[in-house]
């Protein structure tokens, strides 16, 4: 869907190969670089965004290779019932141990999986719903638009925490339930952005030209207008992953998220909050993990906004 690789090296061999081909065969066109090269060049200038990107790549790697990195399982109690409870960070337990003696470092490593999975899945659902509804509303206008935008208003009026508690009560507390809740409440902003993009883009002449040449409506909407509306959506989506992870942590903290022993960062903070005075590491490490991850996504989103829109410079 996007031609901007997020969380991977944008100067992929593919891009390089294309440039070589251009400069090799058509020398006079060497100046016409693919757009993604320009975007990457502008993105690189933003140090904070690059730092955020590096951290996101790091977290992704941690999540993927959690089995290799973590010294213990996330539910494992290394010392058994006689193990170290609430142990301070040491060379044995880098981030200490929790109230029932589990290794905090291992739990946080595995927690990256939970957070990223929920963040990505919920954001994907939100983007999908928002894209479709926003596109339909902006393209067709009239009664359909009014209906969709009023539905959006109704959803805006429902606090997601209340909805989450309700869903948790009905379907039980699980990762999937939280993904559903965050996905179903996160599409409002996307729908509004997409709708306003479509409203302006559908006026353009190439859309009229596409109609005049007999292209169908669905094709015009998704093949001709949508790619032109992607830039704000990419930015919004990146930041949304961060805020979704934050919401997930908040819901887990409140106890309507995944259940113990699932290593959700927010849940770990909740479990450690009673021992803040004597075992601050129980709150500090998972809290820092959430904070840094969310901050990284927001920084990258900001960097992408500047990089994708040359007019801001």
């Amino acid at each position: 869907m996007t031609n901007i690789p997020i969380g991977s090296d944008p100067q992929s061999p593919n891009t390089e190969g294309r440039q070589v081909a251009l400069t090799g065969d058509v020398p006079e066109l060497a100046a016409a670089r693919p757009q993604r090269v320009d975007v990457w060049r502008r993105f690189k200038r933003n140090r904070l965004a690059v730092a955020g990107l590096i951290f996101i790549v790091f977290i992704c790697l941690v999540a993927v290779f959690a089995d290799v990195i973590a010294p213990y399982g996330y539910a494992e109690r290394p010392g058994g019932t006689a193990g170290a409870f609430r142990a301070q960070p040491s060379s044995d337990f880098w981030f200490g141990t929790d109230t029932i003696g589990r290794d905090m470092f291992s739990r946080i490593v595995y927690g990256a999986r939970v957070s990223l999975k929920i963040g990505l899945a919920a954001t994907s659902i939100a983007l999908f719903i928002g894209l479709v509804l926003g596109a339909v509303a902006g393209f067709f206008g009239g009664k359909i638009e009014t209906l969709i935008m009023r539905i959006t208003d109704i959803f805006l009026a429902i606090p997601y925490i209340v909805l989450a508690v309700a869903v948790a009560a009905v379907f039980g507390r699980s990762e999937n339930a939280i993904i559903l809740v965050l996905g179903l409440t996160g599409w409002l902003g996307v729908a509004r952005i997409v709708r306003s993009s479509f409203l302006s883009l559908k006026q353009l002449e190439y859309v009229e030209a596409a109609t005049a040449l007999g292209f169908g409506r669905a094709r015009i909407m998704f093949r001709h207008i949508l790619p032109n509306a992607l830039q704000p959506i990419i930015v919004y989506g990146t930041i949304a992953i961060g805020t979704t992870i934050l919401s997930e942590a908040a819901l887990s903290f409140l106890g309507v998220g995944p259940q113990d022993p699932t290593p959700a960062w927010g849940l770990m903070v909740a479990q450690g909050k009673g021992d803040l005075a004597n075992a601050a590491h129980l709150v500090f490490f998972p809290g820092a993990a959430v904070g840094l991850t969310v901050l990284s996504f927001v920084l990258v989103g900001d960097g992408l906004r500047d990089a994708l829109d040359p007019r801001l410079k």
Partner: protein
Amino acid sequence: MSRRRILHEQKTDGPLLEIRNLRAHFDTDDGVVQAVDDVSFEIHRGEVFSVVGESGSGKSVTAMSILGLIPTLKVASGEILWKGENLLEFSDEDMGAIRGNEIAMIFQDPLTALNPVHTVGRQVGEMARIHEGINKKQAMARAVEMLDLVGIPEPHKRAHQYPHEFSGGMRQRAMIAMAVTCKPDLLIADEPTTALDVTVQAQVLEALVAIKDEIDSAIMLITHDLGVVAGLSDKVMVMYAGRQAEVGTVDEVFYETRHPYTLGLLGSIPRLEQEEGAPLIPIPGSPPSLINRPSGCPFHPRCAFREVPGRCDQEVPALRPVGITEHTAACHFAETLAGVTLDDLRARIDQSELDADADVELVEEPQP
């Protein structure tokens, strides 16, 4: 999902397109804009049919109404007969099969009419994909073939480039390639050269006409440029304030002009044969508002040959034959214009009390 359907073969040798008494208007907050008023004409296969007139004279709206491209335009009466069938009665889906396939359109500004995010080859090929249901690879091959046909050098490389990598003339050629991919019977070109550099205008027009002969279609050419009309057209229709002023062959309209407006248009372009230093003859005033049109002949406030008060400001002149052929004009005094030269027009304008600001309002051209 081929949408290629032969909806109807042409049954007779009748006209490809026949518009009968078309009246269409826009409802705006300021009132009813009568954009097309009682327009009738025919276009035959192989013909180049030009439509000229000032901005806001209804040229584009007439053309766009054929394809049903302006949702806010309300057609009050009349018929648009395409190969004998009334397009106004077609469903949206049926129109989709006509658009691009049988009637294609070339837009004024090729930069905005091409999608910036897709390669040119993909856009040209897309025409064939949706109308003929061929696959991506075949479509790209077809696109390269079409780009070659319209005279784009190195088409196989150009097809993989984006519109911003093309020059203006190249873009317009690409737009033409796109329009003719499905070999339409009628090409509607809405000021195809207005956005182009003068030096490439002629090339693009040549490409357009060459293509027309190649695929045996007709062209409806909408333009301001009387030079283009004289060089390319078989027939000319002059429009003013949504009405037809004069229709005929190029020779008839240009050399046996029977309408003061046409005469005015001819007088306002520079000519090689005119005396050196001789000023152009402007048409006084500006086009009327299509909401509050002048009474009688819509052109009478600006006309050098008017008789006011009299028939000109009371009676709307009908389009009527003014020669032995199909030459028609809508002027009460068409016959008296026989033999009138541009010098006569100049003399008349010099001595008349026509005031440039008289009785005219700025035209609000309805935006489709």
